[in-house]
C-alpha cells in the first residue's frame, strides 16, 4: 500500500532523515519505535507532505506522492493524528470533527460517522459544544483520533497516541486502535516511544535511530530481540 524509498528530509540545513525506506501493506498495523529525536515525527510529516522530503520516493497505491501538496495527500486517504494531538483549541468538539471531514461532501454519511463517533466516545457527545482546548488530555486524544476517522482514512498515521496519558486511558486508546484496524480494515502506521505496548498491537515494526532505520522485523521477533529489549523495553 505504501512504499517509502530512501527519503531524506531536512529542516533548513539540518538533516532529520538520512535515507529512510519502509513498506506497509494494506490491513497491517505497523509500528515505528525509536528514541526521542530519532526522526519518527519527521517521517510522518514527510509522508503527509507537511515537511516534504528533499530526495527519495513515497509511493501510495502505485502513485508517487512526495511532490503532492498536503491537501491532495489527505484526499488520497492518508490521515495523521499528530504528536501532541493538536486539537483546534477554540473550535468546539463538533467543529473539530467537522474539520476532520473537511474534504468530504457526502453530508448524510458524515452525519452517520458523527453518530458512530459519539457512540464510540460518549464523552465527546456530552462535550460537543465545548471548546476543544477545554478537554482533558485523554478526551483530546479521543477527539484527535475521531477527527482523523471523520476523514475515512485508508492509511491512518498515529504519532505517540499514548504520550502523557494515564495507563487506563492508554489501554482504552490502544483497544480502539486495534478495533479500527479490525472492523474498518484501516491500515495503521503507529509511532510510539512506548515500544512494549506498540509491539503488542502491531504486526510488524521498524526501529529508528538518528534518522535511519536500524532494524525491521515482526512484532514478536522485535519483542524478543535483546537489543530492542535493552534499548526500548527497559528490560
Amino acid at each position: 500500500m505504501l512504499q517509502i524509498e530512501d527519503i531524506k528530509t531536512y529542516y533548513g540545513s539540518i538533516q532529520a532523515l538520512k535515507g529512510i525506506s519502509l513498506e506497509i501493506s494494506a490491513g497491517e498495523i505497523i509500528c515505528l519505535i525509536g528514541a526521542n529525536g530519532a526522526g519518527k515525527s519527521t517521517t510522518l510529516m514527510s509522508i503527509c507532505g507537511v515537511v516534504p522530503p528533499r530526495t527519495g520516493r513515497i509511493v501510495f497505491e502505485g502513485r508517487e506522492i512526495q511532490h503532492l501538496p498536503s491537501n491532495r495527500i489527505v484526499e488520497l486517504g492518508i490521515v495523521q493524528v499528530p504528536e501532541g494531538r493538536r486539537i483546534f483549541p477554540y473550535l468546539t468538539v463538533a467543529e473539530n470533527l467537522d474539520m476532520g471531514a473537511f474534504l468530504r461532501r457526502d453530508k448524510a454519511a458524515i452525519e452517520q460517522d458523527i453518530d458512530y463517533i459519539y457512540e464510540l466516545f460518549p464523552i465527546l457527545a456530552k462535550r460537543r459544544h465545548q471548546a476543544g482546548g477545554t478537554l482533558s488530555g485523554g478526551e483530546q486524544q479521543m477527539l484527535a483520533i475521531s477527527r482523523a476517522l471523520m476523514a475515512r482514512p485508508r492509511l491512518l498515521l498515529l504519532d505517540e497516541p499514548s504520550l502523557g496519558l494515564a495507563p487506563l486511558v492508554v489501554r482504552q486508546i490502544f483497544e480502539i486502535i486495534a478495533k479500527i484496524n479490525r472492523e474498518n480494515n484501516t491500515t495503521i502506521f503507529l509511532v510510539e516511544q512506548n515500544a512494549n505496548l506498540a509491539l503488542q498491537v502491531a504486526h510488524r515494526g521498524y526501529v529508528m535511530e538518528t534518522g535511519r532505520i536500524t532494524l525491521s522485523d515482526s512484532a514478536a521477533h522485535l519483542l524478543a530481540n535483546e537489543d530492542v529489549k535493552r534499548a526500548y523495553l527497559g528490560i
Partner: protein
Amino acid sequence: MDLQYFAELFLGGLTRGSIYALIALGYTMVYGIIELINFAHGEIYMIGAFTGLIVATVLTFAGFPTLAVLVLASVAAVVYSSCYGYTMEKIAYKPLRGAPRLSALISAIGMSLFLQNYVLLAQTSDFLPFPSLVPDLPFWEPYAHIISSQEIVIISVTALVMILLNLLIKFTRMGKAMRATSQDREMAMLTGVDVNRVISLTFIIGSATAALGAVLIASHIGQINFYVGFIAGIKAFVAAVLGGIGSVPGAVVGALVLGWTESFFTGYISSDYEDVFAFIFLVVILIFKPSGILGRSETQKV
C-alpha cells in the same frame, strides 16, 4: 451637558470607528492567519480610493445617477483592490513564508513604499477632489443636523459587512478553515485545508473591506491623494492592536473605541492633538492589557 453636542460627537465617533473597522479587518485577519503585519494594507485602501475616484468621474461624466455611480465605483474599487491584495501576497509574502518574520515585514514595507510612489507618479502628490456620492436621503432631512446621510450610509454599510463577515467565519466551510488555520496551520493542512487558498482569501476579504471603506470615506471627506493610505492605515493598525491583533471582533471594538476617543477628545478638549490622543490611549491600554481589549494571549486569532 449639551445633549445634542454629545450625540453629534458620539455619532461622529461611530462613523470614524466604522471606517477604521473596515480597514482594521485586513490587518487583523492577515495577522491572524500568517502572523504578518501587512504594512502595505493602507496602500490597498488608497488604491481603492483612486479606483473609486476614476470610475466615479467617468460614470458621472457619462451621466449615470449618483446612486449607481456609488455602487459601481464601490464594486470597481473592491474588485481592483482585491486583485492588488491577492497579487501582493503572491509576489511579496508567499516566497518568504518559510523565512524569518523580519524578512516578510521588510517586504511589506517595501511594498508599501512601492505602491505609494507608483500612485504618486501616476496621480501627482496634489489632493484630488472626490465627488460626494451619497445622495441626501429625503426622509432623513429632519435629523440631518445631527448626523448626515453620508454618515448613516457609512455606519449601516459597515454594520452589514461585519454581520456578513461574522456569518462567513462562523458558519461556512471556508470560515471554519480560516479559524482552524489561524489556530494551527500545520494541523489545518493535515485535515486537508489548502492553506494557500485560505491565505489568498484572507487577503481578498481584507482588501475588499478596505476598498469599500476608502470609497465611503473619500466621498464623505471629499479629497484624496497618494498619502491617505498611510494615515488611515496607521489609525486602523492602532485600532487592530487596541482590540487585540488577530481578533476580528477585537478589530471592531478597537476601531469604535478609537473613533469615539478621537471624537470626544477633539470635541471636548482640543482638536490640535487629535492623533496624539489616539496614541496615548493605545499606550495606556497596552500597559494594562498587552494583548489588547479582546486579544487572547498568543494563540487565538480569527
